[in-house]
């Protein structure tokens, strides 16, 4: 149970060492800078003031972003060879000297990045242009048979109308309608260029002096001029457009090639992006420092373990004046958890809920045991457990450079896998009943012969009641462990009476009631138990339960007075119903355990449908592989979710509130490389 002890560190140093000190702190990543606000300092700040570094920081952040988007563009043209396991490989380690080189090369790399981004933009622009041109080309299609400019309005003595009618018409129909509308005019010629459903493109010519009349008659027929008439004849215009599309495509290609030619600089780009991120976070800290003309002051939290070495280094190497003190009582300390090999993996689960709040203990050590046990029970198949543990084990051994958080998660599943194996052996489940099924179907093992993989303990499907009772028992142990944590927490703060009131009485009440219940004949018969509990024990248990109940009624409302206190006490006793539902909740251990086994059986049975011939073997292998992979994934998810739920709701509900703030040290929050110490 280790919430790491925090100290407050004060560093006073000369400004000419500022860069070195900040860089050193960033590499060590053990100090969370926490500068007091101006208001709280008041007169005490003397000649010290803060510098505004926001604009510098913004520049770095913008650069980091620029380089980042350059990499994105680059990756779409020259996809990097990324293996499926890339995320397991972790960040590349680089030396301080390489960082220095990256810093020196940064302006040049930034220029490359800007160029890549500009090229990417050019490609986008040209693609938009192509889309525009293609739309134009599409609009021209109905006019391809027209051999004059679409803007032709006539000659000296004729008027020409080029446009569309909103229906399908033939040249004859157009002429007939015109003749009907304008009986006095003759010599109108119409030609249909093309017809589509609901549209006719037509060319109409008449004598120049009759133009106005013909036009109004045409309008009466729904005639409209095209939206974008081309100056050249449509065929030529289309050729021009195609040429422009080809040019744009060529431009895209050349831009793409130019982008791809930077593929060799990908690494540099990534490093530079990280370098800018680092600089940005350094400038943020810089803006938080109190500075006088020659001296700066930095304060924050440091883990107690790292404090002495840091103090020595700062004093000896950088002539700083360093003070390390125990933080004041009211300070909002950041929380860092530290645990051993076995319990550290569940830190992530705790963080998913909330880090321990003030005066709370780190529940990892207690929780991890239950976590592994409960998870294993829900999945409970030896072969599945073996596969999980094997997979995780191989990954953990092969990839030494995995990021810490991921490594912990993998280790958690490794232990969960081991536990699953353990329960699988106890319940006799190896890919469900695969061994028996294979033996019976393909090797003629008698159906009435005993199972080849007998359970070490019992088979859940044969005795579900027994497993349910065991689940409840585990639940009671889990919940009581939560209560014990509560007692521990309260005692640590010296609140012994509260420990008795809020936890002790519940032990008596719930414990007493359970023993009394178990001693009932009816219950034993129902559950198929035969535990002889002497009446004396039952009576003692009932007495304890009574003391607990009275105690709870008397103390639950101890903050209030009079009738209110009594009512609150009664309400406190009502909490026994939540105990009932909490314990019942552990029946999911049975439900999920059975689900794994039964679905595995279903798949095994499906596999044997085609008998024992060659086809049968092929079918069996197919169904077996697909089915068990599916079953494993689904039940892995179920086990994970429900184990978390039992921890969060049932276990944490008994003692844990959380609300702690995570320790966020000043560090190089890089994505691609990791600075190793020089």
């Amino acid at each position: 149970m280790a919430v790491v002890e925090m100290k407050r560190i004060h560093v006073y140093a000369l400004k000419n060492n500022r860069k070195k000190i900040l860089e050193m702190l960033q590499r060590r990543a053990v100090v969370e800078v926490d500068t007091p606000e101006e208001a709280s300092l008041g007169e005490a700040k003397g000649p010290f003031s803060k510098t505004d570094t926001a604009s510098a920081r913004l520049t770095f952040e913008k650069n980091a972003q620029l380089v980042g988007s350059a990499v994105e563009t680059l990756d779409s043209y020259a996809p990097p060879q990324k293996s499926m396991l890339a995320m397991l490989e972790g960040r590349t380690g680089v030396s301080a000297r390489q960082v220095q080189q990256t810093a020196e090369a940064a302006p040049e790399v930034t220029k490359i990045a800007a160029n890549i981004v500009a090229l990417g933009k050019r490609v986008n622009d040209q693609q938009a242009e192509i889309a525009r041109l293609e739309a134009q080309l599409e609009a021209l299609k109905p006019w391809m048979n027209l051999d004059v400019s679409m803007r032709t309005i006539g000659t000296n003595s004729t008027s020409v109308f080029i446009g569309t009618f909103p229906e399908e018409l033939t040249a004859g129909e157009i002429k007939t309608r015109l003749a009907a509308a304008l009986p006095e005019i003759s010599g109108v010629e119409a030609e249909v260029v093309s017809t589509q459903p609901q549209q006719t493109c037509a060319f109409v010519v008449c004598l120049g002096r009759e133009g106005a009349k013909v036009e109004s008659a045409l309008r009466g027929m729904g005639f409209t001029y095209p939206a974008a008439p081309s100056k050249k004849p449509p065929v030529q215009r289309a050729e021009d457009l195609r040429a422009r599309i080809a040019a744009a495509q060529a431009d895209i290609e050349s831009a793409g090639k130019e982008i791809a030619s930077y593929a060799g600089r990908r690494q540099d780009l990534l490093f530079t992006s990280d370098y800018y991120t680092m600089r940005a976070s350094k400038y943020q800290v810089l803006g938080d420092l109190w500075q006088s003309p020659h001296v700066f002051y930095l304060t924050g939290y440091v883990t107690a373990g790292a404090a002495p070495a840091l103090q020595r280094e700062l004093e000896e190497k950088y002539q700083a004046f360093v003070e390390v003190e125990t933080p004041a009582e009211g300070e909002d300390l950041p929380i860092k958890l530290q645990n051993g090999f076995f319990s550290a993996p569940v830190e992530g689960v705790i963080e998913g809920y909330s880090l321990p709040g003030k005066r709370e203990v780190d529940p990892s050590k207690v929780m991890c045991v239950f976590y592994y046990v409960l998870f294993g029970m829900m999945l409970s198949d030896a072969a599945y457990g073996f596969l999980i543990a094997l997979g995780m084990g191989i990954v953990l051994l092969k990839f030494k450079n995995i990021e810490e958080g991921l490594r912990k998660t993998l280790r958690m599943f490794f232990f969960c896998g081991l536990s699953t194996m353990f329960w699988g052996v106890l319940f006799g489940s190896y890919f469900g009943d695969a061994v028996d099924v294979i033996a019976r179907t393909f090797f003629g093992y008698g159906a009435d012969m005993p199972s080849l993989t007998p359970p070490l303990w019992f088979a859940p499907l044969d005795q579900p009641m027994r497993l349910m009772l065991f689940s409840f028992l585990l639940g009671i142990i889990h919940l009581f462990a939560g209560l014990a944590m509560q007692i521990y927490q309260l005692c640590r703060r010296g609140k012994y009476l509260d420990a008795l009131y809020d936890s002790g009485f519940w032990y008596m009440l719930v414990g007493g009631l359970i023993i009394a219940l178990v001693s009932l004949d009816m219950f034993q018969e129902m559950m198929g138990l035969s535990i002889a509990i002497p009446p004396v024990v039952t009576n003692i248990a009932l007495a304890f339960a009574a003391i607990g109940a009275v105690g709870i009624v008397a103390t639950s409302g101890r903050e209030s007075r009079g009738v209110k206190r009594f009512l609150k006490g009664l309400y406190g006793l009502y909490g026994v119903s939540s105990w009932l539902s909490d314990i019942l909740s552990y029946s999911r251990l049975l439900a999920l355990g059975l689900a794994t086994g039964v679905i595995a059986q279903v798949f095994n049975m499906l596999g044997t449908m085609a008998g024992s011939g060659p086809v049968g073997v092929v079918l069996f292998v197919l169904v077996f592989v697909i089915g068990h992979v599916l079953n494993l994934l689904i039940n892995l998810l179920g086990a994970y979710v429900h184990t978390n739920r039992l921890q969060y709701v049932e276990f944490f509900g008994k003692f844990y509130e959380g609300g702690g703030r995570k320790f966020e040290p000043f560090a190089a929050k890089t994505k691609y490389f990791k600075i190793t110490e020089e």
Partner: protein
Amino acid sequence: MQNFDWNALGVVFALLGAVLAALMGGIGSAIGVGLTGQAAAGVVTEDPSQFGKVLILQLLPGTQGIYGLLIGFVTLTQIGVLGGTAPDTLSKGLLYLAACLPMAIVGMVSAKWQAKAAVSSISLVAKRPDQFGKSMIFPAMVETYAVLALLISILSITSIANI
């Protein structure tokens, strides 16, 4: 009709129960996973890195279908279809039907409501990916009742043969 053996209907009703459990649980889960899938896909269009998280949330209402299958299968192994002996009386068949009903009905309804909780959790994760741990718990709360129904169904089914 006078010679009609009503007891022959026992196995019919028992099978009806098994089928209903798988059917209704499956329907509920299909609706549920469909709902959550839409929400999850929406999140992934904005932020593909959330795929793993929203996938887990999407699958949460999928368990009712599995529980339904489980009850269906266990019933089949009891009533002489895949093992066991066929119920010899009408009442026994009806008992199997009744035993399957908790899983069938609660499974279908809870899957739908769990899906609604999961959809909300998916939008929670979209806005605050760091709150994934908590977001998982809200839909899991609904599932409790499916688990309880499963429990009652399975305890009933495995005990009916001894009545």
